[in-house]
């Protein structure tokens, strides 16, 4: 027997139509996109600065007008009416169309930038040409496909950020967090690196030139940060360059563990990160599409941890391949580097097994597998690698396949292109090695948890449905357990949508953070002791 809700299809449809203002606003936004599309077909706009301005203003204006009309006439509160009735947000026809369009855009962006008008020598044409004036104004250089992408990305975060701010205007956690991602995207990811490019060749950098560096983007999300050409760039750029290299290493080994300990991985994933920023703003209408099944959770754990192993090996191999065997080039040699990596991993592994075994439980086996794959590979590097070769591959090949498979296909084409089909955090959940590493810390060594409010849960399922990471929040809440999951990005939406005030994201003592006991309040105290006996 099927519990499929047929009534939806049989009878009259609930209202999902757009209001007149919303329709006009959509048209305005579409007009802005059309300008860009026309440019892509090599329509040459006479005054590029003007048309680019018109286009970007229409896109932002359209989105902002739409949001105003959608939210500001209503009382503040949860605005999920009709989410599952709209074909854009219920994996219906428009959802698929949007998914296909976005995916197509990513494929062209990553693999066929010439169609966007990229010209290697000489003036850019098409879309990229349209963005030249803005790029020159910022960095002094002509635009590239990445500049176009960066601009549109920032525009999306700002426009849909405003939408999100209005949608959740009753919730200060959501508002402050959204200001934060809007700020980090605009300043750190977009403007600062472009301005930094102006310094290149200046005496401040001893005449060197810095690699393009979004300072908040740390390894392993920024998997190329320690590649040879970048290290050369950093080291050639005087004290500033050196400081940035040190900062790059410190972010992953010192700064992020401390912040994650204090606040959980949310400080990065939903307050700072650009991928998270896009997911939380432009991706917000699709957050409920994430798969909540236990099966999806199992797949998630295998895939994401494989990516961690992959990126660790790849980075080690890349660094290994440009290090020398003596200390003349870099003070670090090939073998001392490998030993260093092995010692670090062993320390982490041993520490976890000694002190955190209890909490690790079943996952220990995944950890152990990952650990041993890496160690054996390291030994392999050492014995079977020649110059430029790692194992049987060229380190360049390993790097290229990572960049293709993970950097482009996974994070871009699938991760963002499939927002309307798989939900807005597919990349963050299944692919991001940074999220996996922060998640590991969050699970084992952090004060962060989502506290369940005693016995107040009515098992309604809003929290699970709107969890973009596919966490079955209700499964914990209805048993009175706290939610301590490595994948939780701390977006706070589960807490916002809960109609009974059951969930609170907070930082508290480590003791009692994960109760695997059922601690439902409300019933007989002695009985609860019995229930909790294992």
């Amino acid at each position: 027997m099927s519990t499929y809700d047929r009534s939806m299809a049989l009878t009259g449809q609930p209202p999902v139509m757009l209001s007149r203002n919303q329709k006009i606003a959509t048209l305005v936004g579409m007009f802005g996109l059309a300008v860009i599309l026309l440019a892509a077909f090599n329509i040459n706009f006479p005054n590029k600065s003007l048309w680019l301005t018109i286009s970007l203003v229409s896109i932002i204006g359209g989105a902002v007008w739409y949001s105003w009309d959608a939210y500001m006439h209503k009382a503040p509160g949860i605005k999920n009416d009709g989410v599952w009735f709209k074909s854009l947000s219920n994996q219906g026809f428009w959802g698929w169309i949007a998914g296909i369009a976005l995916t197509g855009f990513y494929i062209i962006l990553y693999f066929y930038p010439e169609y966007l008008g990229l010209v290697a020598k000489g003036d850019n044409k098409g879309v990229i040409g349209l963005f030249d004036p803005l790029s020159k104004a910022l960095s002094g250089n002509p635009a590239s496909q990445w500049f176009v992408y960066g601009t549109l990305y920032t525009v999306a975060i700002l426009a849909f950020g405003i939408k999100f701010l209005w949608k959740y205007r009753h919730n200060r956690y959501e508002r402050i967090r959204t200001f934060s991602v809007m700020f980090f995207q605009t300043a750190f990811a977009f403007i600062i690196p472009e301005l930094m490019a102006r310094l290149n060749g200046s005496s401040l950098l001893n005449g060197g030139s810095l690699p393009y560096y979004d300072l908040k983007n740390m390894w392993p999300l920024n998997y190329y940060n320690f590649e040879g050409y970048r290290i050369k760039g950093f080291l050639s750029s005087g004290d500033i360059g050196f400081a940035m290299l040190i900062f790059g290493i410190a972010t992953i080994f010192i700064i992020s563990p401390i912040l994650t300990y204090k606040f959980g991985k949310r400080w990065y994933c939903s307050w700072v990160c650009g991928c998270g920023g896009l997911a939380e703003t432009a991706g917000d209408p699709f957050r409920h599409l994430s798969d909540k099944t236990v099966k999806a959770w199992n797949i998630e754990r295998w895939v994401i941890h494989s990516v961690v192993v992959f990126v660790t090996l790849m980075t080690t191999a890349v660094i290994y391949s440009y290090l020398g065997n003596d200390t003349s080039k870099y003070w670090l040699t090939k073998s001392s580097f490998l030993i260093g990596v092995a010692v670090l991993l062993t320390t982490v592994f041993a520490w976890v097994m000694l002190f955190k075994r209890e909490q690790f439980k079943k996952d220990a086996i995944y950890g152990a597998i990952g650990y041993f794959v890496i160690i054996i590979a390291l030994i392999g590097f050492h014995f079977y690698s020649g110059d430029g070769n790692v194992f049987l591959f060229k380190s360049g090949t390993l790097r290229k396949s990572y960049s293709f498979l993970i950097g482009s296909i996974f994070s871009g084409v699938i991760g963002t292109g499939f927002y309307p089909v798989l939900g807005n955090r597919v990349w963050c959940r299944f692919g991001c090695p940074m999220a996996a590493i922060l998640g590991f810390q969050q699970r084992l060594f952090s004060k962060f948890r989502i506290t369940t409010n005693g016995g107040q849960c009515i098992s309604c399922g809003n929290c699970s449905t709107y969890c973009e990471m596919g966490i079955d929040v209700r499964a914990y809440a209805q048993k009175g357990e706290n939610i301590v999951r490595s994948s939780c990005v701390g977006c706070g939406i589960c807490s916002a949508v809960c109609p009974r005030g059951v969930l609170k994201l907070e930082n508290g003592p480590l003791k009692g953070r994960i109760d695997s006991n059922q601690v439902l309040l409300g019933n007989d105290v002695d009985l609860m002791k019995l229930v909790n006996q294992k």
Partner: protein
Amino acid sequence: MENIVIIGNGIAGVTAARHIRKLSDKRIIIISAETDYFFSRTALMYVYMGHMKFEHIQPYENWFWEKNGIELVRGYVTQVDTPNKQVLVDGSRAFHYDKLIIATGSKPNKFGWPGQDLHGVQGLYSKQDLDLLEINAPNKEACKRAVIVGGGLIGIELAEMLRSRDIPVTFLVRETSFWNGVLPEGESQLINEHIREHHIDLQLATNLVEIIPDENGKVKAVTTDKGDTIACDMVGLTAGVTPNIDFLKASGIELGRGVKVNRYLETNVADVYAIGDCAEQHEAIGNRRPIEAVWYTGRMMGETVAQTICGNRIEYRPGHWFNSAKFLDIEYQTYGWVFGERGKKEFEQHFHWRDDKENLCVTIAFHKETKLFLGINTFGIRMRHEIFDRWLTEQRDVEYVMEHLADANFDPEFYADYEHKIVSKFNSDFGKSIKSKKKSIKRIFQIS
């Protein structure tokens, strides 16, 4: 191996089954008529509003039951044959039981209004009611106005549902102010205003007289005791619920309004238990009602009866009362006892605070003489269950509660705090000079 048969796959029956499974390997069969799988009744509204699909309000994936050895049978129990320890499903299939748990929940009240069985008239309790609502009120074109009769928690949910599809709603409430049988004056007033903010035509102190059909036997209008005739396409009857126990009349099991049980949740017949909405205590426990038709008590009774059935006979001893609801955009929580005008004890004194701008208010009940803290209602502010449970157990007085109110706040991070406003109102009302203490993680989590 013992056969445990449970009638009803609601929160009560399913909780009992889960806990029996944890404690034993007895054979467990759940027989239920409404749906194949357990779903959260409290979330029905969100399906109509498009927040969730029906599958999302099922707390367990479909494989869960087989994996845990809980057998599900879809069917209606027509007869319980206690001498032979059998239940009869749909008049034909018989199941033998060693222990029987009755967890059949409630059904909506109908008070014999003329026209109450017309097309377009319905309650809101079951999955079938939800499906029916899709037919009676799919959108504002098919349903130009709906009238809701009965001002309780389900009535206001139904109003919110219909408003989410822009359907005009008239809300007839018998009381002079919304839910004031339960809520103190000020709170009830806040909700009256909020209902009207949502463009719901709230008619207080108004009773339904008659539902008038058109020529096809479908509702056309209602008349009220104020002499009004209101044209409408749908009537929602939400005037409370009664235990769903008619099928037990000939079973020999003692019935009152519900299935009569003792503190062990046992009925007068050996090996037959009743839990959840359909159970009626011989004597009310503390301030509770003999029939407690809420989600949480169904769950607690399920936990309790599982112990008894697995050999550890134990009384149903619910802890401090708590509950929660949401009135449109305003969340409501309660811990301990705060009574409205009707139920207020003579020693019960109230302190009430309402924010001058936002939809927030708090009422605290305490003992006139001893100042013992009795309970709190909050609107628009979330509170920490564990803290109030602790304070009630420790028998704190109202001044202690005022001083430490910040510890009890459960709003998301960065929310404005209202403790100083609340405390200064308390100070001026009662001539005190209490200073509210800053929130302390140490106190909240009891770490030294």
